[in-house]
């Protein structure tokens, strides 16, 4: 099953590679990984999307906690959470595509952030599955380029990951 794991770690060089190295060394799946400093510059926040049986997820959490640079780990799937991912899609905007792409972007509440003679760049935010749905809804021939940030997650209401 897919899990979203959030963690706070010391904002030190090499900390990211410790996490990435752990996943490859122990053959854990990694669907996406995002990392950036928090409001406290000494800390980075990472969101990892992974999948595995409950046993594997339990081991992943334990192994992450074991890393000396990791301060706190939270499995967002243990409670209610919000997941968001940003995607930029460059699509063909010629002939019939020009109208069609605008319409699709509106339906998915995307925004066209760059307009060129032959293409649009659409910005879309949402859960990973919404972004997947958007790509599926588009005519494959229209997609020129896509870039996704990977998911960021945060607990709902009182679920706060902070030290």
């Amino acid at each position, binding site marked *: 099953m897919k899990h979203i794991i959030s963690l706070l770690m010391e904002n030190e060089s090499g900390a990211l590679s410790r996490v990435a190295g752990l996943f490859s060394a122990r053959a854990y799946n990694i669907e996406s990984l995002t990392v950036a400093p928090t409001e406290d510059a000494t800390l980075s926040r990472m969101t990892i999307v992974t999948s595995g049986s409950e*046993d594997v997820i339990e081991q992943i959490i334990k192994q992450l906690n074991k890393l000396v640079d*990791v301060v706190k780990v939270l499995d967002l799937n243990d409670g209610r959470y919000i997941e968001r991912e940003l995607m930029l899609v460059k699509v063909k905007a010629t002939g019939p595509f020009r109208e069609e792409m605008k319409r699709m972007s509106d339906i998915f509440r995307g925004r066209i952030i760059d307009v060129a003679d032959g293409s649009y760049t659409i910005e879309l935010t949402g859960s990973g599955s919404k972004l997947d749905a958007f790509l599926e809804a588009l005519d494959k021939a229209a997609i020129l380029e896509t870039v996704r940030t990977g998911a960021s997650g945060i607990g709902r209401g009182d679920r706060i990951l902070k030290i």
Partner: protein
Amino acid sequence: MDDRTPQISGAEILIRCLQEENVKFVFGYPGGAVLNIYDEIFKQNHFKHVLVRHEQAAVHAADAYSRATGEVGVALVTSGPGATNAVTGIATAYMDSIPMVIISGQVPTPAIGMDAFQEVDMVGITRPCVKHNFLVKDVKDVASTIKKAFYIAASGRPGPVVVDIPKDVTALTAVFDYPKSVEMRSYTPVIKGHSGQIKKAVKLMLEAKRPMVYTGGGVVLGDASEMLVKLVRELGFPITNTLMGLGGYPATDKQFLGMLGMHGTYEANMAMQECDVLVAIGARFDDRVIGNPQHFFNKNRTIIHIDVDPSSISKRVKVDVPIVGHVQSVLAEINELLQADTKRPEAASLKTWWEQIEAWRSRKCLTYAKSTEVIKPQYVVEKLWEVTKGDAFITSDVGQHQMWAAQYYKFDKPRRWINSGGLGTMGVGLPYAMGAQLAHPEAQVACITGEASIQMCIQELSTCKQFHLPVKVVNLNNRYMGMVRQWQEFFYGNRYSESYMDALPDFVKLAEAYGHVGMKIEKPSDVEAALKEAFSPALKERMVFMDFITDQTENVFPMVPNGKGLSEMILAEEL
């Protein structure tokens, strides 16, 4: 501190840090990137530097020093090849959770990333085989980093910590101020076990009808042997030790069932499989210990698992009562609860269980065919045990001889058995013996090895000469990589692919060339006399290399074939 506080070089700061940590030995090898450090070593007399002949041996020897004393082992190597040579030693220590600090030189900060001479990304290379590592980029951070390194290495589940120091950092100066303590928000190892879980565990132990205690290296490393003995004797439970746990419980005690696992005893493996309450302490259910987890599974068995590392719990085997904590602290709490409780396990059930165990024991799985023609390797180990009165520090390399040492040398005390259990590193035996001998200069130290393993770090005969280390090498020479040969015999249709050790040196002459005493023993009747001579007062100060020419085709039994369960052993008489 004011402006008049003297500034000293990074190299001197490092030396002062080691002094503050009360380091007695540094095992190392000099080179360009660590010249400033070696210059400061020259000027001090707080610790002794042990010059090895290869960096791998420096790390192994420091590792063994730690295993034999409980202190943090310290090794010092130069950048590039010095650092990479150390990696096998670091990985070995990591797999067995040995507290160590390895200091590696690095090219000067401005040269990092420039493919400089003798540059290697040591922090990157060692990341997967250290507990933690540091690159010190500022001379002001040397002291605090070394403090952290020692703290991380020795606390929680211990392990090696690498500190990589660029050459310019050892030359620049700063004020020396060694921190009194360390606090790290990201690293807070658990010591005390959850008291509710401990109560639950005690209740289960007291209700057990077929109890079994299984302990590993955690008991030895956690110095919890005394508490373990108290607990096991109080309850009258049977106990087994893993390869790493030997000595944690006295092997000559009647409650001890021997080692378990792939080459464990019949009684220990059967009791593991058939017990109703299993108490695992400082052990990790690894593949060589319980075999295939599916075959090990038994729904009628409840497992209590005490370990300092939460990630060791329910990794390969689901447990019912996990207790995360330092084994010493948890065992102390269990013993206290038992003292306050008048209840004891039902005597009748325990008696029936012991009768079953004695029936398994009566299979005498560790017997071997005696011979007057050819030296049986097991016989040499038995005699070694007798001659040293079971009181030596024994190191081993990896393979058949390691298993025979574990099976036939009965360790009654912890920290006496020093071997590479997790990584299985051939070549550790001789440097391990050096570390153990330096830690205990007056003790008898023997290295049980084979003619294949010993050649992997044979250059250390020179170090033994320089430091007058009277190690006794027991070379069980069967002219084969014995364990490889055994697997090829059992599982590869007797195709002995590349497992024959051809063109062996004359070990007697080799030992003599290094200034040691060499002996070649070819007849079973000479074994005891040779050992007695080697350990006699006349040779107390000398290193002795005993080359025992042993039975070429002897195999290690019992054996649980790879992927099988503990009750699926092959016994010697079944073949």
